C-alpha cells in the first residue's frame, strides 16, 4: 500500500487527543469459477478498507470506510468523534495496548503467486475440464489467487504489518450420479498438486456412481482431512474460544488439566511455525503465542485476547479479533499432531465403517457439548473387512463432538493444510460409534 503512513498520520491527527486504533486491510484478488466444463464466472477485486476505533475515557466508537481522500477521512473521523461523545462510560473498556515485540513469523508472500493472470487460472481449469469432457464427466470448481496486506496501528505508536499471498484450487467432478471432490490451499501456487487433485476428484466421482442405500445408525467413520477438520474446527472454536470459556459456556470449563478426549488427540494453535501459519500478531497488534489446546486428550488452555484474559485472570495469548468482538478470541491456526499410517492404513484397520470425503452444511446444535449436524458429500463409501466395498447414499449426522473425539481410535500420519474458519493442518482420522441420524436420496 502506497502512502499508508501518510494516511495513518492524517487519521491520528484528526482523532486529536482521543486514542485511535486503525486496521487497514488491502486485498488484491481474483477468482475463476467453472461449471459444466466451462468458465462460468471470472472476477477480480482490488479493495482497501480502513477501520478506525476511537476510545476516550471509557467510551468507544468505530467508523469504517474505503475512501482515503482528505475530505473522506475528515468526514469519517468527525462522524466517529461525534458518536463517541454521546455514550455512557464503560468502566470495563480497556485502553489501547502499547507496542510489544512481535515474532517474525514465516515468509508467506510469494509475488509470483500474487501476480498470476486470468489466462493461468483458465488453463488450470481447462486441464481438468477437457479431461472430464473426454471421459463423460463434468468438472466444476474454482481457481483463485491474490494477496492480502494487513496493518494494525494505534496512536500510542503501535504499528504491525503483515502480507501474504494465496492460491486455492477446489474441484468437484460429477460422473452421472457419482461425485468426487478435492481441494488445496497454499501461500505459494507451486505447492498445489493440481494433477493429483484432478485425479483424486475424477477417480472418486467414478467410484461413487450407483450408491447403495445404507441404514442410518452408529458407525465407525474414517474421515479424510477435510471432513475431520470441519468437526475439529467447531470443537476448538466452541471449546477453546476465550469468550465462551469466560462465560461458562464451553465444555472445557472446570475441566482444564483433565483427560476428556482420546489420548490420540493433540492440537495446538500456532500461527508462527506450525503447519498452519498465518498472522503473527492479533487484531490489536499483540504477539500471537503458540497455545496447546489439547495434549494427549487432556484439555490444556483456551486462547485469550486482553479482555477475556483479564476476566479469567491470565495473560492474553494474542488471539484478538477486530474489536469489539461478539465472538471473542478464537483459534485460527490449528495444527493437529499427526499419528501414524496413511488413509489406506486407517481403512485397512476398519472392520465395518463409512469413509467420508467431506461434510456439507455443518452447524452447531448445542455449544456446551459441541453437538452438531451436517451431511456427508462428494464421496461416501462403505468399508467392510478393511476395504472400501461400495459407495453409499449420503448420511446426515447428529453428534456430540466431545463424545465423538473421546471415541477417536486412530490418527493418520499425513497432515495437509485445510481452509475453514482459518487454516488447519489436519491428518485423516477414525472415530468409533459415530451417529448417522438419517440418510438422503442420493
Amino acid at each position: 500500500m502506497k502512502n499508508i503512513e501518510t494516511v495513518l498520520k492524517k487519521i491520528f491527527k484528526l482523532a486529536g487527543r482521543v486514542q485511535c486504533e486503525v486496521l487497514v486491510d488491502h486485498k488484491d484478488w481474483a477468482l475463476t469459477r467453472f461449471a459444466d466444463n466451462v468458465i462460468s464466472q471470472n472476477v477480480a477485486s482490488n479493495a482497501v478498507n480502513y477501520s478506525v476505533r476511537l476510545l476516550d475515557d471509557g467510551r468507544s466508537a468505530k467508523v469504517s470506510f474505503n475512501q482515503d481522500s482528505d475530505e473522506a477521512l475528515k468526514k469519517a473521523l468527525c462522524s466517529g468523534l461525534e458518536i463517541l461523545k454521546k455514550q455512557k462510560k464503560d468502566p470495563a473498556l480497556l485502553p489501547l495496548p502499547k507496542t510489544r515485540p512481535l515474532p517474525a513469523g514465516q515468509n508467506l508472500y510469494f509475488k509470483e503467486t500474487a501476480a498470476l493472470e486470468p489466462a493461468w487460472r483458465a488453463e488450470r481449469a481447462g486441464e481438468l475440464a477437457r479431461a472430464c469432457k473426454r471421459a463423460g464427466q463434468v468438472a466444476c470448481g474454482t481457481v483463485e489467487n491474490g494477496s492480502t496486506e494487513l496493518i494494525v496501528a494505534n496512536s500510542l505508536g503501535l504499528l504491525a504489518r503483515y502480507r501474504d499471498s494465496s492460491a486455492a484450487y477446489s474441484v468437484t467432478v460429477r460422473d452421472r450420479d457419482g461425485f468426487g471432490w478435492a481441494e488445496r490451499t497454499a501461500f505459494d501456487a507451486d505447492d498445489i498438486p493440481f494433477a493429483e487433485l484432478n485425479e483424486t476428484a475424477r477417480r472418486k466421482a467414478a467410484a461413487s456412481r450407483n450408491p447403495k442405500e445404507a441404514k442410518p445408525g452408529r458407525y465407525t467413520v474414517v474421515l479424510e482431512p477435510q471432513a475431520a477438520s470441519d468437526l475439529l474446527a467447531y470443537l476448538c472454536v466452541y471449546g477453546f474460544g476465550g469468550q465462551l470459556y469466560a462465560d461458562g459456556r464451553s465444555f472445557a470449563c472446570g475441566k482444564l488439566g483433565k483427560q476428556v478426549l482420546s489420548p490420540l488427540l493433540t492440537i495446538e494453535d500456532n500461527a508462527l511455525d506450525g503447519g498452519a501459519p498465518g498472522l503473527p500478531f492479533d487484531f490489536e497488534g499483540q504477539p500471537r503465542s503458540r497455545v496447546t489446546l489439547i495434549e494427549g486428550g487432556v484439555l490444556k488452555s483456551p486462547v485469550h485476547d486482553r479482555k477475556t484474559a483479564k476476566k479469567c485472570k491470565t495473560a492474553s495469548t494474542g488471539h484478538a479479533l477486530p474489536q469489539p468482538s461478539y465472538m471473542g478470541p478464537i483459534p485460527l491456526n490449528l495444527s493437529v499432531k499427526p499419528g501414524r499410517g496413511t488413509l489406506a492404513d486407517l481403512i485397512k484397520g476398519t472392520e465395518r465403517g463409512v469413509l467420508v470425503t467431506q461434510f456439507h452444511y455443518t452447524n452447531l446444535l448445542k455449544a456446551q457439548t459441541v453437538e452438531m449436524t451436517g451431511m456427508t458429500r462428494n464421496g461416501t463409501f462403505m468399508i467392510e473387512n478393511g476395504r472400501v466395498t461400495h459407495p453409499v447414499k449420503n448420511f446426515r449426522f447428529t453428534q456430540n463432538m466431545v463424545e465423538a473425539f473421546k471415541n477417536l481410535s486412530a490418527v493418520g500420519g499425513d497432515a495437509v493444510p485445510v481452509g475453514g474458519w482459518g487454516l488447519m493442518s489436519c491428518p485423516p482420522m477414525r472415530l468409533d460409534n459415530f451417529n448417522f441420524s438419517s440418510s438422503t436420496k442420493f
Partner: protein
Amino acid sequence: MFKLASKAIEIAGKHGADFGDIRIVEARTQTVAMKNGELGGLDDQTTLGYGVRVLYKGAWGFASGSVMTERGVADTALKAIAIAKASRLLMAVPVRLAPEPAYTDIWQTPFLKDPFLVPVEDKLAILSRADALMRKSKKVRVTSSEMNFFREHQWHMTTEGSRIEQVLLHSGASMTATAVENGQSQLRGYPCSHGGQTLSGGWEIIEAMNLEDHAQRVGEEAAALLSAPVCPAGTRDLIISGNQMALQIHESVGHASELDRVLGYEESYAGSSFATTEKLGKFRYGSPIVNIVADATLPGGLATAGYDDDGVKAQRWHIVKEGVLSGYMTNREFCGRIGQKRSWGCSRADGYSNIPITRICNLSLMPGSSSTAELVAGIKDGVMMENNVSWSIDQKRLNFQFGCEIGWLIKNGKKGRMVKNPTYQGITPEFWGSCDAIAGPAEWRLWGVANCGKGQPGQRAMMCHGSSPARFRKVKIGVHG
C-alpha cells in the same frame, strides 16, 4: 455519478463487448449493539466503489474498483475485458442475455423516518433498557441487543441504454438472552435470533417491534428453558411458527428453485437442486394447499426494489402453485434454458465488488384459512416450535434438519408444557406434502433473512419470507446426538 459510469460503457463499446454494465454503489451500514449491559459495538461503515461487468464474444469478465476517477473506472473496465478474453479459453456456447427494455428511472424504498437521523443516544437508550429487563432473570448470563441500519445508493448503467438509480433502505433489530446453569445454556430471542428481524423501511420498523415490551419475557423464557424437559424423540405432528417458517421456506424452496443451482452452476460450493427442470409444471412439491410466491414488489421485503442488477423490472410469480413446482428464480443469462423469454429479475450483487448472481427473491407461503388455535386443536400428539437456532440441508436441498429456540408439547388438542432443544428432520417434498393446514391472513407476517450466503467468492444477500403458522403431519422430531 452517471458521468463517471459512462466511461466504463464507452470502453466496453469501444472494445466490441456484446454487453457491458457498471454499478456504482455507495453503502452505509450503522450497527449499534449492547452486550451484558455495556456497549457491544458502535460501528458506522461506508463504502463507495463500482463493479464493471463485460460480456465479450459470449464470455463474462468482471472487475471492481474504488478509485473514483475516470482513469480508475477505465482501468477497471479494461481489466474486466481482459478477464472476459481469458474466459473465452474455456467456453462452449456463447452467453446470450434475455432481452429487457432499457429504462431510465429512479426508485427508492418507501419509509417514514430516516433511521440515520435518529440520534445514536436514543438507539442506545432503547437497547440499554431492553438489556436491563432481560437481565432481571438471575440465570441470564449473557444478553445482547442490536440495531442495524443499511442504505445503499446504486447507479446502474448498461450498454443497452439503461440508467437506473435506486436507494434501498433496511432497518432491523434483535435481542437475545442466554441463561446458563450447570454447564448448560439456553437462548431465547426477540423478534428472533441470527441477527434479528430486518425489513425494508425506516425507523418505524424499530418502533413497531416494541423491544422493551418483550425483553423481560425473553429473559424469563431463556431461564425457564434450562429446567424444561428435552423435546422427546419420535414421529409427531408439528406446528411451525415464528421465523422458523421463514428458514424452512428459504432453505427447502428458495435455494432449491434458483435456476443457476438447478442447472449445476453452484455445484462446486453450495450444491445443486432436486427440483430439476423436467419437473417444472408437473412435480408435486407439496400438498394442494401449498402456494409459494416470489415477489420483488412486496412492501417491506428486503429483496424489494424497482429493478434487479441485470436491469430487469420487479415482478411477482409462483414458485409452487397448489402444491406443484411452477417456476424458478431466474436471471437474464439462464432463463432461456427453460424456454422463458424474460427473466424474473433475480440477479443481485453484494455491494460494489461482486458480480450479480441469481438470488432468492422475497418468497412467501400464502396464508390459508385456519388459525393457530385450530391447528393446535387438530393435533392429538405433537409439538409447536418457534424461532430458528440451527439449520442444515443437503446439497440437493432434500434432507434437512432444523433446531428451534423453544417448543411446546401439544396433547389432545391443547398446547402444554415448554420443551427445550426441539429439532426436526425431513425430506423436502415429503415434508411439504404433509402440510395439511395453514393459518390465515390475520397471522401472516414477513420475516427478514439478512445474511443469506451464496457463491464463490461468497456473497451476502437479503430477502424476506412471509408466512403464517402451518401444520405438518408425522414429522421426525427430537433428533439428538
